[in-house]
């Protein structure tokens, strides 16, 4: 088979193709950013540059509250689902039945969002009825609102949704980690927790951080399950969808969406840049070592 790099045009065409894919994926995001600076808003014939809509964000209480609600959901989901995914990934590495573990962990991905959301809705409603009936039997009202639709039911839905992704991201990172290092730490006198915290975690924390970031992004992205399980239109995506369906997205919504994108791209971009710089540094050190020592 011919080596493509023997043809410079083949090499260039590959890069062009890659660039086209990236542009296609990112074009909607860049367009939203572009509109967010337009004083006349989306669809206007004339474009006048302004930062005003970014200022208006902070007086739009509905938008701010929905953003805060989603951030709270994201934070609680992160602190719950990332340890769960980590434990599942560690179990996968030692189990004699890895296929079963992977199948179970990825199974929520094969259920459409609306089906899963509806199933959880029915589940929580029935659970609520059962516990209310139990309370009535016991003559207490403690259990009456335990499983009402709200934050708790929404978080359960988000955990089920994000756990497969977290599991896969952490598993990929852990693939490079050698279990012998944990054993070496144990043989130096470390407890299981110390071995994890001192030795394993520093080497997989990039994956942990990626899993956290991914969970936040997925939470902001999620609409169907959260709407069904929380009710109302007080999540960030819920407000945007509601605006789009009714009166069109407000200009400050475009500004808010753009801000979220700046943060996400900035964080991920910085990580990539730091990784490339570090790799270049290590390569320079390795090259220097490989050079013969002068007489």
């Amino acid at each position, binding site marked *: 088979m011919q080596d493509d790099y023997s043809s410079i045009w083949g090499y260039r065409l590959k890069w062009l193709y890659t660039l086209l894919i990236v542009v296609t994926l990112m074009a909607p995001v860049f367009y939203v950013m572009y509109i967010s600076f337009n004083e006349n808003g989306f669809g206007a014939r004339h474009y006048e540059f302004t930062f005003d809509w970014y200022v208006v964000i902070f007086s739009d209480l509905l938008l701010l509250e929905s953003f805060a609600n989603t951030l709270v959901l994201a934070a609680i989901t992160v602190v719950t689902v990332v340890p769960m995914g980590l434990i599942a990934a560690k179990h996968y590495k030692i189990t*004699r039945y890895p296929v079963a573990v992977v199948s179970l962990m990825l199974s929520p991905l094969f259920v459409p969002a609306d089906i899963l959301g509806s199933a959880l809705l029915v589940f929580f409603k029935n659970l609520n009825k059962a516990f209310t009936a139990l309370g009535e039997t016991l003559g207490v009202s403690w259990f009456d609102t335990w499983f009402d639709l709200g934050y708790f039911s929404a978080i359960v839905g988000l955990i089920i949704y994000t756990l497969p992704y977290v599991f896969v991201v952490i598993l990929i990172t852990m693939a490079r980690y*050698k279990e*012998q*290092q944990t*054993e*070496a*730490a*144990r*043989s*130096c*006198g*470390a*407890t*299981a927790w*110390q071995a994890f915290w*001192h*030795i394993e975690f*520093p*080497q997989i924390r990039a994956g942990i951080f990626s899993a956290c970031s991914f969970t936040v992004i997925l939470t902001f992205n999620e609409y169907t399950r959260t709407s069904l399980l929380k009710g109302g239109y007080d999540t960030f995506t819920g407000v945007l969808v509601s605006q789009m369906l009714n009166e069109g997205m407000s200009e400050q919504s475009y500004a808010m969406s753009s801000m979220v994108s700046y943060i996400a791209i900035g964080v991920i971009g910085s990580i990539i840049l730091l990784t490339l710089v570090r790799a270049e540094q290590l390569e320079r050190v390795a090259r220097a*070592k490989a050079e013969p020592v002068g007489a």
Partner: protein
Amino acid sequence: MSQKTNIAVEVKGLAKNYGAVRALNAIDLQIGAGEYFVLLGPSGGGKTTLLRLIGGFIRPTAGEIYLHGNEVSDLPPNGRPTSMVFQSFALFPHMNVATNVGYGLRLQSMPKAEISERVDAMLEMVGLTGYGMRMPHELSGGQQQRVQLARSLVLEVKILLLDEPLAALDAKLRKDMCIELKRIQEKVGITFVHVTHNQEEAMTVADDLAIISAGDLVEVGKARDLYENPVRRFTADFIGENNIFDGQITDTDDTTTTVDLGYARISVNNHGQKASVGEKAAVSVRSELLQLVDADTATSDGLQIMPGEHRETVYLGLTTSELVRLPDGNEIMVRRLSGGTDARKIDAGEAVQVGWRTEDGRLHLS
């Protein structure tokens, strides 16, 4: 519970199963304090399983483990007076050499100044003075193994476990490291338990050897004894370049046993082993103790002779091997030092006689 305090490691009835697979059958073994003890055997035989059981990395299916008289079967690795050096380099890649070596001391909440002092002393012992600030990926294979060794020895444990520590090194480096390991063990005086499948490595470092194969403890003894006078057929086959003749016992008394090979009858000193007529047995002779004798040499009480056909001469530098085919089709090896003045060129296919002194043969009833 074992009352012997000069025994560093004692296992009783120790077994390990993985489902239906028996990795280790019930083993009884004692390792003396201050010894360099080697677990030798073919890959997959159970030696690493035994080592990891002693270290606490896996739980036994049955049996007990005593370390310096204390039962430790239920204790995790960090609760045992052991430390381990691994085959693949288990250095912590995000820590420099000094931090790697001092890791266990930091877990003991030792003052930093004392940690630094002990780390420096240990690096000097393993010949890595000045390497404290280097990262693991900047070290050679041999250097990484020295750091692992330093990291374990600095803890002043009573028993050091080594799981094929030299397997990933090239042959020359392996030889140098063998001698280095032996020197360090003699200097620190603690018990080393070393797993390997390389018999040259084992013979270089071992005070005592245990041969482990297919989950069984085949034989235990001094390295020299196992090489010169193995009791079990497997040991003779595994250690050294031995020629093994399988046959049936036709005559035996208190000192001598005669074995019929089909094409020849050979006598061997049985060293008091209780042999029975009709029992299957094997006789082994080290290849360096065989010699090609003249055609008119006959079997006598002092010399055992058998006919053969010369196949090939193989020059290996220090030694030369003559391959001889026996009447039953098996091939044996006659080894000698190269360059002897009495060596003559032998053609392939030429009829020869192979002989050895009767006392050089070893009888194996199992």
